[in-house]
């Protein structure tokens, strides 16, 4: 049982990092990014290639850099150009992007699954109540917690973070105050994409790499972002950790309905408590 709860926590932590990026991009650009799962997958593959040359940590860094650049270019060429169009147009464009990225990854890396080793430092397992639990999975929880803490500190303690919070509350007023909101949005899209890439690399050693790996987790991310109402990172963290438990622990305790719960909750939130996506802004 402890093992199941921990496994749920591991998946929840991964979801949290991914969903934080999704929520950030939504906050600034009002774009529900269907490409986010594909960013995660692209990040995993980019990290995989870099890790073969320089090890896991090089892979992690390379993935963050590559995806940040990708996000910046995407924001400059696509999101900024489409910011005055119907938001649904941009959503469909990110959906097209998802197809392009999945296909490009298949082109470059092929369709067969690949696996990546955990760094030597975190290899092996520890005994927990009689069962062996991989150290790497504990490290995933720690890495997610560190990233979330850093993100929170940046949002609430730095000047750039202040601009990000202001611009997601009211971009027009923020711009009037002399903040270059386009630059803020570009920074945030780059950061959101980098977070997706990093979570891809973090996932790689315990979930195998495949071009389809982004699909399932994308939908889970949407559940997190919608259920937490896009209100706060804290809400998203709670939603992500709960969803992790539903996915893993729920599958053991309530195998028949566990898979339905997230989607029904998401639908209920959209119908009855619409904040963020449907109702008032952040």
């Amino acid at each position, binding site marked *: 049982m402890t093992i199941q709860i921990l496994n749920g926590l591991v998946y929840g932590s991964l979801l949290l990092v991914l969903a934080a990026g999704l929520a950030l991009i939504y906050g600034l650009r009002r774009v*529900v990014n269907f490409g986010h799962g594909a960013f995660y997958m692209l990040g995993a593959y980019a990290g995989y290639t870099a890790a073969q040359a320089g090890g896991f940590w090089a892979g992690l860094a390379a993935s963050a850099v590559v995806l940040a650049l990708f996000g910046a270019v995407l924001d400059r060429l696509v999101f900024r*150009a*489409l910011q005055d169009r119907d*938001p*649904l*147009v941009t*959503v*469909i*464009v990110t*959906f*097209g*992007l*998802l*197809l*392009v990225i*999945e*296909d*490009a990854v298949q*082109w470059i890396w092929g369709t067969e699954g690949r696996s990546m080793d955990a760094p030597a430092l975190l290899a092996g397992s520890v005994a927990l109540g009689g069962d062996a639990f991989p150290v790497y999975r504990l490290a995933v929880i720690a890495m997610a917690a560190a990233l979330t803490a850093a993100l929170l500190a940046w949002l609430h303690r730095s000047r750039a973070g202040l601009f990000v919070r202001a611009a997601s509350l009211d971009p027009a007023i923020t711009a009037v105050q002399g903040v270059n909101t386009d630059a803020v949005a570009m920074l945030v899209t780059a950061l959101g994409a980098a977070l997706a890439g990093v979570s891809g690399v973090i996932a790689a050693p315990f979930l195998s790499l495949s071009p389809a790996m982004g*699909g399932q987790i994308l*939908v889970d991310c*949407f*559940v997190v972002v*919608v259920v937490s109402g896009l209100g706060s990172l804290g809400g998203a963290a709670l939603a992500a950790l709960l969803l992790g438990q539903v996915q893993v622990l729920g599958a053991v305790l309530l*195998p*028949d*309905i566990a*898979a*339905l719960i997230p*989607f*029904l909750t*998401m*639908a209920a939130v*959209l*119908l009855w408590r*619409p904040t963020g*996506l*449907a109702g008032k802004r952040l």
Partner: protein
Amino acid sequence: MSGAGRIAAGALAAAAAGPAIAALVPPGVLLSLLAQACIYAILALSVGVLARQNGMVSFGHAAMFGAGAYLAGIGLGAPGLLPAEAALPLAVLAMAAVCFGLGLIVVRVHGIAFAMLTLALGQACFEAANKARGVTGGADGLTVALPREIFGLPAATFQRAEGMFLIAWLAMVALAALAALLARSRFGLLTEAIRENEERARFLGYGTVLPRAAVFALSGGIAAAGGVLYVLYNGFVSPETVHWSVSGSALIMALLGGTRTVWGPLAGAAVYFLLREQLVEVTERWLGLLGILLVLVMVFLPDGLSGLPRRLRRRHGAEA
């Protein structure tokens, strides 16, 4: 000629083109592909109807398509209970009724939130189809044996490409004509008015929820009809049919073709299948090219490919 007359004439001409295509195309892989394309075109049509009349983008229509297929499959699997001739239309009507009830609730949600809502409900249906092994066969899917005769036609007619192509083609034309006639009726104009400005329509004294729910029901019924044909042709349906990636493909077809016209999504389905089958012989990269095409159409041709003639005409007129 009046608008309704034009629609009727167009539908008759399109219906007559069906047998001509079937006669020209040699039976085999290509005709089987055309049969599948017509079935998915019906799904794209249903997505387009919802977008055109209600301004709603759905990421969950595979659930209605799949539910129609499952209902028909379950009905055909219990021949003592219902004759097939009753089970098939009943599957469509039941889905339309369910969608009307659901529509009363969901049409209050707009824009991206509606897209996410349909995605959530669609995935809930996907998980339910996976889990309800007793009814749906779970992940293994449901294999359906057709009775010897349906509507006086031998079962083989439905499962061979020559037969199914013609049936699906005629169904597609009939459903598109029905949607076009409804679109230019009082009801159609009212829903367009609500789409443009719901508050103003309400000020004029119209209830807005019922017409929007009715469009949702119509769209669900059309999608279910596509699902019924799907299960007749394949004799099989599995949760994969309900997955949101199928909804996404149908949405791509509808938006590629354009949803300003009723027939746009049909053109979109044709382009989608042409790309998939023709490009695959030249390059394996058809999915990426489809994505690029989708992005280009969304950015530069908001009316879709079916809006292209009008656009060119307008530009030509402006120059002349």
